[in-house]
């Protein structure tokens, strides 16, 4: 089993921390292997943020993600830039209020969540990344729930722990509900326009 993942958005959304939590969950709490890489330099300026994870039950050799099994896009720029890297039939998880889809997502299994709104409902917008982590775990099953929660505990300051655990639960539940009411696998959970709207 080897999965290539990318989480991308803009600075301040906690994109890197989200990837960190998942990578840590796999490599420390699940006993698997995870390699995380980030984009540095000019392309990381201007507010864009992105991290890639290669997770496996074997040691990871090739460090970079080249054919994504899952893309988590938290901004429309991130979507536009990275959606071509998702493999045929791969998964796309989006912050649905921030990412307008187009025909580039057609061949993908798409799942949306209003993570920012849910975070605001919990009282702190800052936790949207952890909501996304919960959502990711529920939808993809790539990272086990318990391991991810342990990892959240490691990663956040104690005084924000409860809030973050709630955020994780919220994202996770949202994912479970979505899957329950959703159509059979392979079909879109979000309407993808057939033609470009631009």
């Amino acid at each position, binding site marked *: 089993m080897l999965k290539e993942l990318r989480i991308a958005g803009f600075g301040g959304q906690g994109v*890197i*921390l989200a990837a*960190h939590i998942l990578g*840590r969950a796999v490599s420390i709490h699940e006993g698997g292997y995870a390699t995380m890489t980030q984009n540095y330099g000019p392309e990381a300026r201007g507010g864009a943020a992105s991290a890639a994870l290669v997770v496996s039950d074997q040691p990871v050799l090739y460090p970079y993600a080249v054919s994504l099994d899952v893309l988590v896009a938290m901004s429309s720029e991130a979507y536009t830039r990275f959606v071509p890297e998702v493999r045929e039939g791969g998964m796309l998880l989006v912050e649905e209020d921030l990412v307008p889809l187009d025909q580039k997502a057609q061949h993908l299994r798409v799942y949306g969540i209003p993570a920012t709104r849910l975070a605001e409902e919990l009282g702190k917008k800052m936790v949207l990344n952890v909501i996304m982590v919960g959502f990711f775990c529920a939808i993809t099953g790539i990272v086990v729930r318990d391991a991810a929660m342990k990892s959240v505990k*490691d*990663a956040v*300051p104690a005084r924000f722990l409860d809030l973050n655990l709630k955020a994780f639960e919220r994202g996770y539940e949202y994912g479970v509900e979505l899957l329950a009411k959703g159509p059979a696998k392979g079909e879109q959970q979000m309407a993808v326009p057939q033609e470009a709207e631009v």
Partner: protein
Amino acid sequence: MSTTELHVHNPVEDLLRQDRVPTIWCPGCGIGTTVNSFAHALLGQQINLQKTAIVSGIGCSGRVSGYMNLDSFHTTHGRAIPFATGLKLANPELTVIVYSGDGDLTSIGGNHLIHAARRNMDIMVVCVNNMIYAMTGGQAAATTPGASNSTTTPYGAFEPELNMAQLVDAAGACFVARWTAFHVMQLERTMAKALKKKGFRFIEILSPCPTYYQRKNNMGDALAAMVDYKKRSKIKNGCPTWETALEPGGEIVVGEFVDREREDYLTRMRRQLGSHYSEFPPQPEEQESEGCEKEC
């Protein structure tokens, strides 16, 4: 270069590595004279010589460290100051002196000079200013007075000379002085004073190089240089350093120009770090936190 005996006698002899005499310095060279003052200053101050280290760069003046019977470090051209910085930081108990040439300290090593002064690193820097790159055979330095001849300025130097005193003053040195090789007593007193002071201390000494600078510029021998220094120098303690520029043939302003109190690097570091600094490292329990707050 011919060699000569260093004309120093007891008790200074203990301060010199007798097994390295004769020195490489030419007859009439001013470097040995400055070393004599330095040795007397060290003795007079009862400095713990076991805890005194001397660092030089490369050049005739850069050989001083190797003749002193102290912990001697002869480093690379221009880099004595950063070496001395590391030494001092690693063992703050040490008295660290940098002794080197004008080319070494101000041309190739100019940047280090500025920043050590800015940091107020607790080292004493002695610069033998013979106004030339002597070791390599008499090329122009940043300190070569305008219009002087050197092997690389056969038509005279086109560049104005650097005023080191003003430079290190502006950068933040807490003690700045200048003497010539003629002013042996004053030099000794100033060195003694500087040895006792904390922070970045800078002493410039105009020193004759009969072999290159004097000869290239028809300035006669070492004696002629002394006569010249005596005639041209004017003692102005406390003189603002912008008024101490060395004009070719003009007045040589000497004296102690700057003597001020400023917190040195290590004192400031400790003060600002406060409880973040542990003399004794914390126990493992406190460190084993797996939180990755900092790691992300």
